[in-house]
């Protein structure tokens, strides 16, 4: 997902869950910050680089593609952006090497999602925001895995967008080309993606890179052949999925606030969202590359408050200038703690499932920030 959902939609969901405006701002900032907290940024603020929740393109390009590099990549992307659905999934005739990657496929409502949300219970607002980012991404990034793998993440020419026309849809073939200098062309179905490399563990095959940014557009409805599904067609309806993500976030945050005693998977607070459903649906289905303006307008109407735009540098000085014993109390210090917890939990579960793709699980007990 992109900033329009991670920042503004999360704000709206948090508000509907009962948080105050200030709390919503902390939550949505943290949710969006997951997409920016790279090793480079952490180095800049003299923070721990192993708390990174993302990798910049240049970091990925520079990343070694040996086993350690792949492990580090898998740890970050599986923990924060492509939460695995079933770490014990079986596939007939598959080798252990293949199954290790197959088991990292992301889908919503997996066991790890419940652990992610529960991890944020009783913790900081930053932890809540981070959990909401992970939750939201399970909907947008379904059927892709947070490890570089051609046999899981590759797509081919069979990629069609279902474009609304009249009461129905028309199928239009999506054309991908590697051209970052020009924006995606919604009208002509021309989108940028990563280069095709015939190497299984190429960084080009990480996540949904082979489908470019397309899965992150809220308006996208499409069908394609995932490399792992034996030529079966997968149909993705992002407007519907994003609405589910939104209602699930409301429910999850109500649980985190204490309204419910436990978090149940596959449960959505449609009742709280119902008065705004048509408005949200309109925003989600609007064919545009960036829905920030529409979401911002909605959020401001919802809360009656002014929502400041996401400012990456907002809390950096606070962390940088804080004395070392106090860094844990800074905004980013709390975020870093939440990131460590999430990364440790996911890595540990992957490791304990017998899968070494994320390396050995990290023990953060006693780790000082």
């Amino acid at each position, binding site marked *: 997902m992109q900033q329009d959902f991670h920042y503004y939609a999360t704000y709206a969901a948090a508000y509907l869950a009962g948080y105050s405006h200030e709390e919503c701002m902390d939550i949505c900032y943290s949710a969006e910050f997951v997409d920016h907290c790279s090793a480079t940024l952490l180095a800049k603020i003299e923070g721990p680089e192993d708390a990174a929740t993302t990798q910049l393109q240049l970091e990925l390009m520079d990343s070694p593609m040996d086993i350690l590099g792949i492990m580090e990549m898998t740890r970050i992307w599986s923990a924060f952006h492509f939460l695995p659905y079933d770490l014990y999934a079986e596939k007939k005739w598959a080798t252990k090497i293949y199954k290790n990657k197959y088991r990292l496929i992301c889908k919503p409502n997996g066991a790890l999602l419940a652990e992610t949300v529960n991890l944020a219970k009783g913790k900081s607002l930053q932890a809540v925001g981070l959990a909401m980012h992970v939750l939201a991404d399970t909907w947008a990034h379904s059927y892709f895995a947070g490890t570089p793998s051609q046999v899981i993440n590759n797509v081919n020419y069979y990629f069609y967008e279902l474009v609304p026309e009249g009461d129905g849809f028309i199928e239009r073939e999506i054309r991908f080309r590697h051209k970052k200098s020009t924006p995606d062309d919604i009208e002509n179905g021309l989108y940028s993606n990563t280069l095709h490399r015939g190497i299984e563990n190429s960084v080009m095959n990480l996540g949904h890179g082979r489908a470019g940014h397309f899965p992150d557009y809220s308006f996208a409805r499409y069908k394609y052949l995932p490399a792992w599904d034996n*030529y079966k067609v997968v149909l993705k309806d992002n407007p519907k999925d994003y609405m589910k993500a939104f209602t699930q976030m409301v429910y999850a945050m109500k649980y985190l606030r204490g309204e419910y005693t436990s978090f149940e998977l596959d449960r959505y607070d449609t009742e709280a969202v119902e008065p705004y459903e048509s408005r949200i649906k309109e925003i989600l289905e609007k064919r545009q590359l960036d829905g920030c303006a529409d979401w911002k307008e909605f959020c401001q109407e919802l809360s009656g408050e002014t929502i400041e735009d996401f400012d990456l540098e907002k809390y950096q000085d606070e962390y940088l200038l804080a004395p070392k014993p106090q860094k844990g109390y800074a905004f980013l210090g709390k975020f870093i703690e939440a990131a460590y917890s999430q990364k440790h939990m996911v890595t540990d579960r992957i490791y304990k499932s017998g899968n070494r793709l994320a390396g050995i699980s990290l023990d953060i007990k006693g780790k000082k920030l």
Partner: protein
Amino acid sequence: MNNKAAITRTELEQRERKYGNSLVVSGIAVIFFGFWSVLKIIEEIAIGKVDFFEMLDLADEEDMGIRVFMTVFFVLLTLAVIFLHYRVGRAAILVGRGKKKKFFYLLFAISFLLLTVVSFPTYINPEVVDQDDVTIAAFFVDVAYCLALLDMVVSSFLISRARKQLREG
């Protein structure tokens, strides 16, 4: 349509996509092998392993006109080989993607296959060619080429059958 027929149709569509993908892959392979078959000869000439005019049986020919003519003929033949492979490969790709229905390219694919298989004995006859690492590598590449052509032929028949079954419902 009852459940059993619906499942069968879904499986058929799956197979059709699978064979289509095989055609696309083998089509791309044939195009590359077309370049390879020409590159093989050019490389041998370039590194001096084979003398160009000896290859054309013109080593003793003093008539410049004939030499030029044969050289031009060789170049045109080279281009024709690349072009034919490109057409065959592209046709297979288009059929695989459902954008073309005619299978005329199969005639050429089968011809290429037969010609390549027939040339295999030259690899194992030490009186015909010097065997070295390059020869062994070239042999394996030719085997891969034959497999790509065979895959193309088999996938073409299978996709044609699958599409017919889908049309018949």
